């Protein structure tokens, strides 16, 4: 294994404490590593540096040397080299670590700078806290409390600006609250590559707006709401719905595509209110697509499968399960797994398929990759099916083999774990010829024509893992209990374990943590992992067994297909 070359490390001194940081680290990041907060607004680690808020002003000093001889000048009082402190403060975001750099953040000058900037930001800021969504996660509130003067000296009239502009279908703008940090402008230019935001007018009357005739409607528009330090940009969907301090945060993964954006589910009393990205420098930085955020609406929607069914009529869960077991034991079964199932579910599906001597397929879902955080593979976990052995080749879009086998009578029962078979090309005739057992969450063509329907849980209501396009194992956790009204909805793992137990007499439990002992034992890639020790940012697996497969994905933010082929040759 090649040892990573030690990056250039430079030692800097912040408030008397020394730390060695890689070359190119700015003062805000270096201080953060020491646990020292340097307050800021316009700085964002993933965007270019503009240095316009001036909140991160700190004192900077460099070691004194004799200009003629270049020998260090010593301070007799401390016995150390004298430090020449600059009379002008400098911004931390634009000051990179350099040898001998000294920074002070607790001096009277720095305190005055922060109080001054806070005062200036607040003089034209509307007194909207009681009605502003940002309350509780607002940088202005935080830093005013932490570093502000505490009282106002402003008795003039505040500037008036447009207060409720619909910038696009999902984002509402309040210009009075905007502190003109330009994070949203930079994000739109640099990350979303949709340069529609900009400032008009001058000075304190500067106003954020959308380019005339255009809208902020790209699939990353809501990230501007996340990064807006104040309540200027708000999510139209979330506006006025809930105070953030009442919400529970649960780590999850966006199931839209194989990128596997890390997310946070915000919920209260069993209802989800919003989804935001979670920071992961290896996968999605601090961003996610808008389309992934809207997915929580599927939890409590009219088409949610609420009851178990036999032949279209509602049945007791035990009866439906018994009917399913009867069909499976009759033989001639095929299994259709899903690229949207978790690794654990795919593992049990594989076990079930083996016990039934059933062939197994997946249905592929390929769309247009956007090059950012939505890959061409719209299944989050096809690779989980590969790693668990459920499939050996990449899935096709149509279940042509299965259709043929149904037509010929070779297959009499199809167990579908969350996959709508009509999307895979199965016809009404085939649904009549074979009996379909469907585990799913929403009504669709398959649930309507199935012999048995066993309602299951959405990703938000269960825990598990996905393997993303990088072959990174990532965990998602249960955020809310099974949806109210979907009384029969059960965890897929529980259903699969019961079916497996009935068919093969095994004793595997449908509990994700308990299941991992078996996963660890049986799958080589997992031999060194426990679910508990899985890092929040995921774990890269060995992808060599599947290196030659023609994966559909193109380049996204942190994924280059060329790299993979190069790494494995």
């Amino acid at each position, binding site marked *: 294994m090649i040892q990573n070359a030690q990056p250039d490390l430079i030692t800097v001194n912040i408030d008397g404490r020394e730390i060695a940081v890689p070359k190119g680290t700015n003062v805000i990041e270096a201080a953060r590593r020491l646990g020292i907060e340097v307050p800021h607004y316009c700085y964002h680690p993933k965007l270019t540096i503009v240095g*316009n808020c001036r909140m991160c002003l700190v004192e900077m000093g460099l070691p004194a040397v004799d200009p003629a001889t270049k020998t260090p000048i010593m301070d007799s009082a401390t016995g150390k080299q004298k430090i020449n402190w600059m009379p002008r403060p400098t911004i931390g975001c634009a000051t990179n670590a350099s040898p001998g750099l000294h920074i002070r953040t607790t001096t009277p000058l720095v305190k005055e700078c922060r109080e001054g900037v806070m005062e*200036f930001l607040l003089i034209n800021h509307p007194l909207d806290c009681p009605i502003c969504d940002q309350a509780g996660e607002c940088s202005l509130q935080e830093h005013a409390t932490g570093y502000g003067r505490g009282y106002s000296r402003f008795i*003039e009239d505040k500037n008036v600006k447009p207060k409720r502009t619909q910038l696009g279908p999902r984002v509402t703008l309040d210009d009075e609250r905007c502190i*003109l940090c330009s994070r949203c402008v930079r994000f739109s230019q640099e990350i979303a590559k949709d340069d529609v935001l900009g400032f008009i007018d*001058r*000075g*304190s009357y500067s106003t954020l707006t959308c380019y005339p005739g255009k809208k902020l409607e790209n699939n990353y528009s809501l990230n501007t709401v996340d990064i807006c330090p104040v309540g200027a940009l708000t999510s139209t969907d979330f506006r006025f719905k809930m105070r953030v301090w009442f919400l529970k945060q649960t780590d999850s993964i966006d199931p839209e595509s194989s990128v596997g954006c890390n997310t946070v589910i915000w919920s209260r009393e069993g209802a989800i209110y919003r989804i935001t990205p979670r920071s992961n420098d290896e996968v999605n930085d601090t961003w996610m697509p808008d389309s992934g955020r809207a997915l929580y609406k599927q939890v409590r929607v009219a088409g949610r499968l609420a009851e178990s069914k036999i032949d279209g009529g509602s049945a007791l869960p035990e009866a439906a399960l018994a009917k399913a077991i009867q069909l499976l034991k009759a033989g001639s079964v095929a299994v259709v797994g899903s690229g949207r199932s978790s690794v654990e579910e795919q593992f049990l599906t594989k076990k079930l398929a083996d016990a039934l001597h059933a062939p197994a397929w997946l249905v592929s879902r390929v769309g247009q990759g956007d090059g950012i955080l939505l890959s061409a593979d719209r299944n989050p976990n096809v690779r989980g099916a590969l790693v668990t052995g459920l499939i050996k080749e990449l899935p096709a879009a149509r279940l042509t083999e299965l259709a043929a086998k149904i037509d010929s009578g070779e297959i009499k029962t199809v167990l579908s774990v969350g996959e709508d078979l009509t999307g895979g090309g199965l016809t009404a005739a085939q649904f009549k010829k074979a009996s379909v057992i469907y585990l799913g969450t929403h009504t669709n063509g398959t649930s309507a024509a199935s012999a048995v329907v066993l309602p299951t849980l959405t990703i938000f209501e269960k825990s598990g893992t996905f393997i993303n396009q990088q072959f990174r194992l990532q965990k998602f956790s249960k955020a809310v209990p099974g949806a109210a009204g979907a009384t029969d909805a059960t965890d897929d793992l529980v259903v699969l374990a019961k079916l497996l137990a009935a068919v093969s007499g095994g004793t595997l439990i449908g509990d994700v943590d308990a299941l991992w002992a078996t996963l660890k034992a049986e799958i080589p890639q997992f031999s060194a992992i426990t679910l508990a020790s899985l890092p929040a940012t995921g774990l890269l697996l060995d992808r060599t067994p599947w290196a030659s497969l023609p994966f559909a994905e193109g380049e996204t933010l942190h994924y280059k297909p060329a790299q993979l082929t190069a790494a494995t040759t």
Partner: protein
Amino acid sequence: MPPQRRIIFKHIDEPGYSNDLACYVRNGGYEVLKRSVQRKPEELMDEVKKSGLRGRGGAGFPCGIKWTLVDRKSGKPIYLIVNADESEPGTFKDRYIMEQDPHQLIEGIMITCFANNVKQAYIYIRGEFPQGARILEQAIAEARAANFCGPNILGTNYSCEIYVHRGAGAYICGEETGLIESLEGKRPYPRIKPPYFPAVLGLYQCPTIVNNVETLCHVKHIVDMGGDAYAKIGTPNNTGTRILCVSGHVQRPGYYEFEVGKVTMGQLLNEVCGGPLPGRKFKAVIPGGSSAKILKCGEVFTLKNKDGSTRTLAFEDIPMDFDTLAAIGTMGGSGGVIVMDDSVSMVEALGNINAFYAHESCGQCTPCREGSLWMKKITARMVNGDARPEDGALLKNVADQIAGRTICAFGEACAWPTQSFVLKFGDEFKAYAETKKAKPADSMELV
């Protein structure tokens, strides 16, 4: 009365002198350029360094040193930008050079470009000078036709194109990096320095020299007489001549070119400009454009000598050079001398100045954006009859929170007037609250 020395302004207002090429050549024009292209560029740079020429745009930075900071190693093209934005209130010198003697500027530009291996120069002229832009374009066309600029000038293989680019009415486009942003077609938001020093990362992220119109004219004369000879004009470290633009309450406002430091404040106001208007007394002078700190007539300053001892300097005896004006707590700036007499209310004068800076703040960084407008609102409220005794102290405190905390020098520019007005005329600010008078009916609304 100290004599003017009109080197740059030699032909301004000269009867019979016209701004066409023929007239310029008749008067010896472009001879220096002809000699320059026969010399080595490094020699020309050296002359400018020896001359001690300091920028005439406001900052007074040594021109020769500025040229040495240019990155010549990266292989990127080097640009020259002529800062013809002349927006500093009280300044009106570059305008006359461009309108009446444009070829002097063009010759200075070409010599500078040749010395610095520049192939493309831009004259950024403020939008409010449409006449000047037309005249310059005409002059460039004439010079190009006569092979003084453009491709392969004067029989050499050196080429340099000059383009005129008009601004659209923003003071901040006079800030060198704001100018560069505007020239690139963007909002004129000045860049953070470090890392965007124009000499390294300027126009299109290429090394760029930004020089004032008058400065470039001096370059021609420096190369003409030699750097050493130029350095003997004026006073040590404040060499050459400079054009002082005197406006306000004097008998003879106007532009006057003197050797730097060879005219005192008293001489300028009383002898050259004929003293105050009848029945009035001088009250205050802003010596270097409205951004400079104000001086109170009758003030006595204490200066430190090199050996540590001190000397006093009376207001009338202040030599109008960069160093002395800096030592007494103001600056030579752009040479715009604004004179106020005892009919002026300092609160109203400051209100006028604050309104200007609030209007011109680009809005990029917090202290200047919010602070400039706040100061304007305070002084406007005072002038409109609603002053409080503590407003002077508040104004100064707000200004203190701006200076030194901003991206560009506009922070100092908008803070220094307030700081100095309140410091030196604090009693007027306090007294304004007592009078609490309603605004007189004929006074102008602050914009």
